[in-house]
Each structure stands twice: as C-alpha cells, then as structure tokens.
C-alpha cells in the first residue's frame, strides 16, 4: 500500500523529470505528425558522445575500483542475459502464430542492453542524488553479448535453414561483431582511454557538459521512433506487444534481485543495483538489431525492432527506471 503510494508519487515525480518529458514529447509530436526530425548524423554523434562519456568516466573510476567487487555483478550480468533469452524461448516462442526465429530474435533483443536506457537511468539517479559505482556501465557488454549469442545459437541449432548464405555464423564471430558495433566500441574505447590516459579535463569540459543535453535529444528521437514504428508493429502478432510490455519489467526484477544479492555479498551500492536492474530491463536498440539481422536472417525485423523501439524502450525508461529507483528506496531503507 505504502509502496504503491510511494511508487505513484515517485512515478508522478518522474513525469517531472526532463529525461522522461523529452521521451514523451517525442512521441507526442510524432503522433501530431510534426515534421521535426533530428538529422541522422547528429543522432549518431550523440550516441557516440554519450557512450564515450560513460566509458571515460567508468575507465577513470575502475582505476581505483576493487575488481573483486566487479567480478560478481559481471557474472550476474552474464546470467541475466542468458536467463532473459531462455525465458523468451519458453514463453514467446511457444505462443500460437509466432515464428520461432522471430521469437528468438526478439528475446535476444530484450535480453541485450540499450545504451540510451542506461544513460537515462544514470541521469535519473543523478537527478535524485543517488550515488552508484561509475564502473557499473562496464556491465553492459557482459549482459549484451551473451544474450545475442545465445539467441542466435538457439536459432541456428533449431533450424538448419537459418544458416545465412554466409554459412555458419559462429559464436566467436557473433562476439567479435558485437564488440565491433559502434555502441560497444565507443564504450570500450572510452574505458581504455579513461584507464590509461588522463582525460579528466576534456571529460569535464566537454563530455560531461554535453551529456544531459544530448540525452534529452536522444530521448526525443527515441520517442519519435517509438511512435513511427507502432504502425509496423500493428501488422505483426499482438503477442509481441504483450511481451514487449512485460519482458522489461520481469527482466528488470530479475536484475534487481541478483543486484540485491551482490549488495549483500560484495556491497554493491543501492544505486548500482538500480543500474543493474535498468540494464536488465533495457532492450538493445543500436548494437543488437544488426547482429541479429545477420545471425537470424530468417527473422522479420519489423517484429523485433517494432516491439523493442515502440514498446520495450518506452516501458524500460518511463516505467522501469522509476519503478526500480523507488524499489531501491524501499528495500535499502531498512
């Protein structure tokens, strides 16, 4: 009861958060048929700056982070990525009128991670002055890659015909491709530079300064895309909508639970737990799709991209972030 009240409060409070306001604003103007659009070049630059910024910060922090504390959450991240995909494989894939390939691709996407949701989560925690380990974003690849790998492997095992013209699309190849994707390379490059060089000044002067602003614009883009893809989604089975709505919440709760364990065992901070939950709730919007496209050519992109951008991402950002911030407040209050 109390939780519900406090959740309601926190949620309403969220609506005041600019981060979310821009997301909703994007949907609104897209729904209104506005011709406003953010140039693709700018969008790609924004993604780069956000991930480079997260990477630099994380890299500088990892220097004096105790790696033991990092190990368990990383292990959990891998676990979560796989569990989410398996969950999809035994639920969505079993539903009537759902092609197995499509279901596996969708599960892979929802098991993987979204950079934009991660960034949004970090800013919201900042807004609420909830501290978290700056290395938590480093968990991204540990969850993202296993999810994509598992989904593709399942699809390939199941159907021989799924083997693209490019013959076997091996596990190694999948991992390499994910790491080569623009999102992960920017994140990792940032971490390495943060770890080895002294980018402190350029980070504060430039990357940190632009972070919130760029995120606000990214949220706008996400909102516009979400709406404009709904049309495509309507054409596919309604099960996708249901899955896209509930998967982030369930995945997030799993993440939160394991995060809580990490809190008890290695003292992961409450903020860190929220980040882990948010990462789990998020679904890949940049790196995932092309990897899945190449790995499961038989799957129809309209289904998994539509489900993810139109419903999954908005739910992860607008619903899950406030949900888990509130949960943390309740759980870690004692």
């Amino acid at each position, binding site marked *: 009861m109390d939780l519900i009240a406090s959740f309601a409060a926190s949620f309403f409070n969220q609506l005041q958060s600019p981060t979310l306001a821009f997301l909703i604003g994007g949907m609104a103007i897209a729904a209104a048929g506005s011709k406003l659009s953010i*140039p693709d070049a700018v*969008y790609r630059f924004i993604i780069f700056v956000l991930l480079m910024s997260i990477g630099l910060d994380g890299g500088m922090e990892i220097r004096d982070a105790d790696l033991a504390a990092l190990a368990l959450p990383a292990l959990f991240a891998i676990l979560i990525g796989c569990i989410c995909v398996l969950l999809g494989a035994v639920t969505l894939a079993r539903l009537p009128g759902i092609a197995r390939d499509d279901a596996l691709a969708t599960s892979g996407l929802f098991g993987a991670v979204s950079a934009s949701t991660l960034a949004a989560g970090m800013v919201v925690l900042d807004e609420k002055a909830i501290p978290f380990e700056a290395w938590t974003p480093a968990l991204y690849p540990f969850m993202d890659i296993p999810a994509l790998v598992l989904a593709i492997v399942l699809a390939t095992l199941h159907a021989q015909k799924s083997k693209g013209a490019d013959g076997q699309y091996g596990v190694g190849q999948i991992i390499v491709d994910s790491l080569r994707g623009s999102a992960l390379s920017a994140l990792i490059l940032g971490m390495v530079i943060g770890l080895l060089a002294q980018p402190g000044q350029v980070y504060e002067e430039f990357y940190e300064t632009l972070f919130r602003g760029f995120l606000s614009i990214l949220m706008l883009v996400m909102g*516009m895309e979400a709406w404009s893809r709904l049309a495509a989604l309507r054409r596919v089975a309604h099960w996708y909508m249901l899955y896209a709505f509930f998967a982030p919440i369930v995945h997030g709760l799993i993440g939160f639970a394991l995060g809580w364990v990490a809190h008890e065992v290695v003292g992961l901070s409450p903020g860190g737990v929220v980040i882990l939950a948010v990462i789990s709730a998020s679904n890949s919007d940049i790196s995932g799709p092309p990897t899945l496209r190449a790995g499961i050519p038989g799957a129809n*992109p309209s289904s998994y991209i539509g489900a993810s951008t139109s419903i999954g991402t908005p739910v992860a950002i607008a619903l899950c972030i406030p949900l888990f911030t509130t949960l943390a407040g309740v759980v870690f209050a004692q």
Partner: protein
Amino acid sequence: MFHPATKVTIIAEQLLQDKLIDAIEAAGAKGYTIVDGSGKGQHLTRASDRAVIVSDFSIIRIEAIMADDAQAHALATDVRDRFFTQQSGIVYLSQIEIIER
C-alpha cells in the same frame, strides 16, 4: 568509341555492402558506385536521413557497369541466389552505352 555495356544495379541493406562489393569484384567488374537511400519493398520500410535507430538496415544502391553482358547476368544471378532469397534486396540489369577512356 561508344560501346554497349550492361549496368547491374543492386539495391540492398547497408549491412550487406561489403559482401556485395566482394561479389561485384569477383564477377570481374572494374568498378562500382554506391549511393545511400531509403525505400520500401516486401520487407521493412526505411527512413532516410532522419535519425534511424538502426542505420544498418538503411538502403544502399550499388551500380556496376560491366562490358561483358554474360558476366553481368552471372553477377545478378549470383547475388540473387546468395542473398536475396533470404534477405532484403533486389537486383536488375539495364543496357547502356559507355564511352571508352
């Protein structure tokens, strides 16, 4: 001075670009030209220069002019067989007149 030649035009998703280029060079084309675009077909509809979350699915249009019509047809068949049975994309041929350099 002017010679008849065959132009092979391939329209596909950006993520196939490298493989398509290999196919084109393997088929013996001396060169190719690529332009970015957007479009609609049996599968996805693609946005063009407005921000698209998944740019790898955006469309490219590759044209390769080949002196040998048979090679051109072979290229088209090869590309169709290896890619467009499963993935998005089309390929077509047109007769042109090229001026030797």
